[in-house]
Every structure is written in structure tokens, then in C-alpha cells.
């Protein structure tokens, strides 16, 4: 069987990604590199109770994407199980009704959460070459909360859908905590 090559690349540089900016806004340090961690130089032991995004942080993250534009209901379907057996891997599908033509297509899908440590989940860039504006993936949810999906069209319109989910946990885990 073949080896899949892992191509070495320089460390992440350049402007902070959206989820890193949100973290910085919440007072946390993104991009702690492994060497510094081992040297103990940048020890940030975050008490988990305080390192949380809030509905305000989610609203700010949404505003960064949408600006002053109106957000309309409809066209977006956010598919999540209402009762989640484990928040570590939650299947999620976002579908947007759209002709996906050159003139009228979904150009981006953004998903946000309100109670994880930072409000971003993912940002996907699409185009007419997709044929269908559907993205499915698996996400992490630290708590029962609201998830919001926003679709941006090539005409500059924004549509959104949200879902409230309950996250549970099994009784018998590895650790006592």
C-alpha cells in the first residue's frame, strides 16, 4: 500500500483566522507553538468555566460576516439531531436552496455556535461548480446550545437558520471528572 506523503510546510503565518480572532477577543492566546509550550513559556491554564463564548460573541462573529446587511429567514436547512448522545462528534448538514447558477449561487456557508469556547464552527466557500449548496460534517459541541447557519449568495443576500440542541453524555466514562 502506498504511503501518503505529509508535505512539510512552514508554521502558520499571516493574519489570524476567524476562529483565532474570536479567541483573541475573548482574551485567549491562539497559536501557542509546541516548543514554547514544552518550555513552559506560555502556560495558559484556562479554567474551563470562564473560557466560554457567549451569545454576544456569536452575535459579534455573525456581524463580522454579515455586516449591516439584513439576514433573511428561509432557504437554509440546518440538520442536527435534537438530542445528541455525545458532543465530541455531532453530524451536521447545511443545505441551501439555490439554482447554483453563475448569476445566482451560494458563495459561502458560515456556521456559528453560542457556548463553545469560540463562536466559529466552519466557513465554506462554494460556487456554481458545486451544483448543490450542501455541506455535511461533524462538529464538537461542549454544551446544549443554539447553532446558527448563514448562507451568503452571489447577489449579496444573507439567509439563516438556527437549531437548538441538547447535548448529553454517557454514564460510564474514562475519568472521574
Amino acid at each position, binding site marked *: 500500500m502506498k504511503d501518503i506523503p505529509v508535505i512539510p510546510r512552514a508554521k502558520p503565518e499571516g493574519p489570524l483566522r476567524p476562529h483565532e480572532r474570536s479567541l483573541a477577543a475573548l482574551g485567549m492566546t491562539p497559536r501557542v507553538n509546541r516548543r514554547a509550550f514544552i518550555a513552559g513559556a506560555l502556560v495558559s491554564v484556562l479554567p474551563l468555566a470562564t473560557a466560554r463564548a457567549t451569545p454576544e460573541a456569536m452575535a459579534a462573529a455573525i456581524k463580522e460576516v454579515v455586516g449591516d446587511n439584513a439576514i433573511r429567514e428561509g432557504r437554509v436547512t440546518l440538520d442536527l*439531531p435534537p*438530542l445528541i448522545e455525545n458532543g465530541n*462528534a455531532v*453530524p451536521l448538514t447545511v443545505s441551501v436552496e439555490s439554482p447554483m447558477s453563475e448569476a445566482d449561487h451560494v458563495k459561502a456557508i458560515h456556521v456559528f455556535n453560542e457556548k463553545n469556547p469560540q463562536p466559529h464552527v466552519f466557513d465554506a466557500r462554494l460556487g456554481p461548480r458545486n451544483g448543490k449548496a450542501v455541506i455535511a460534517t461533524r462538529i464538537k459541541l461542549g454544551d446544549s446550545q443554539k447553532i446558527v447557519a448563514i448562507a451568503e449568495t452571489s447577489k449579496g443576500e444573507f439567509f439563516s437558520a438556527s437549531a437548538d440542541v441538547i447535548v448529553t*453524555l454517557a*454514564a*460510564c*466514562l474514562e475519568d472521574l471528572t
Partner: protein
Amino acid sequence: MLPVVFAASFALAQVGADRAGADKRRSGYQDMGAALQKMQDDDSANPGMLFVQLGQQLWSKPAGAANKACADCHSIADMKGVAARYPAMLKDGDKPIDLEGRISLCRTANQQAEPFAPESRDLLPLMAFVANQSRGMPIAPPQDARLTPFREQGAAIWVRRQGQLNLSCAICHDDNAGKKLAGVTIPEAHPTGYPIYRLEWQALGSLKRRLRNCLVGVRAEAYAHEALEYVALEVFLMDRAKGMIFESPGVRP
């Protein structure tokens, strides 16, 4: 240089082998929501399949002083049905051995290599690959009278109260299976999918790891890794699940 491409979906119906008597036993698969069932059924979405693929690669890799690969002695077809009939007694052994132990024995005795660490990155994928060859087959513990005392030892552990919470396995998984505990359905605890990709672990793990979680769950001291108790429990559990369809690699919360 083609990557592995899985084009098919795998739909599993856990009806049990006993059609006439309507088997009422439920695999943990049936207690999961539809989204997780779909994750298990789709070979290109089931994270356990990443480990099966890795196991397939390790299967052909020579190891140890003997410089032998599993493939040098076994064909993949030889592995069909194996996981469904473990734990088993070794030909001239006095104790049952589980699949993990059997693979480890091949590694040290036949490949003459260093033993695997428990839940190691090499052992688990090999277990996953071997177990996957029994997927779709009924669980079929061997008819070996020598297993009887160990099955009875497992049965005794099953009903014994343990730990600070003073619970026995049977209290949750026999008496209260199907009811909810903190919002989650209590499964009957049949080992139909091992090694499983447990979402809680975010990794593949063995039945032994899951049993250790149970012991911590009732606040008991987990037996040592090499303890016979785990194998005895597995002999009992596989017998209790006899006839149910093997699903490895299962996905479980």
C-alpha cells in the same frame, strides 16, 4: 498509486439470527440516534474504517526478528469468522485468550517482535482489520467445554455489586436496559461492534478499554490490564450475545 475508494454504503439490520423466535436482544447500534447509525453504516464516514485501512497496511508489513508479516502466514480470507468466535482456548492452553491477546501472541511468538503496548497504535488497527472480516456474521462462541469455568467466572462478575456506587453490570444492563440514565438510553451491553470508535474517546478502542470505563463508572478499581477478569467477562458477554450480528467497527457514543 491509487487511494482506497469506498463507493458502497453498508446498511445493517440487527434482527438477530433467530427469525422464528423474534430475537428481542438489542445491539447498542439500535439504541443510537439515526445520525450515528448512518455514521456507522457508511464506510466512507465511519472513523473506525480509517483504523481498518491502517490495519490492512500493517497486515502486510514485516516485523520482528523473524521479519514476517501477518500476510506471510495468513490469507485475509482465513480471518473471516475469527473475531466472531473469540475468546477461545489455545490448543494446549489452560486459559482463554481474547483477540487482542491472540494477535499479541503471534507478534511475540511468530514474528519474534516486541510485544504491543495495551491499546497501542499498531495493535488496535490490526484488531480492527481482523474484526472487520467478521462483519455481518453471527457471533459464534466456540463449543469448548474448557471455556465453561471462565464463562461462569464472567457470569459471577456480571451479577456482583462493585465499587463505591455498589452497582453490578446486571443492574444497569439487564434490569434497566432500555431506560434512560441522564438522557441517554442504557444499552444491553452486547459486544457486537468491537473494537469500536467511541465518540467519547475520539478514537478506536477495545472491549477491555470499555470495561475499564464501566469499572470507573461504578467507582470500582479497574482490574490490571492483563487480568483474566476481562477475558472471563468477554467469554460470558459473547455467549450472551450468541447469534447477534457482528458489526465491527461499530460507532458508539
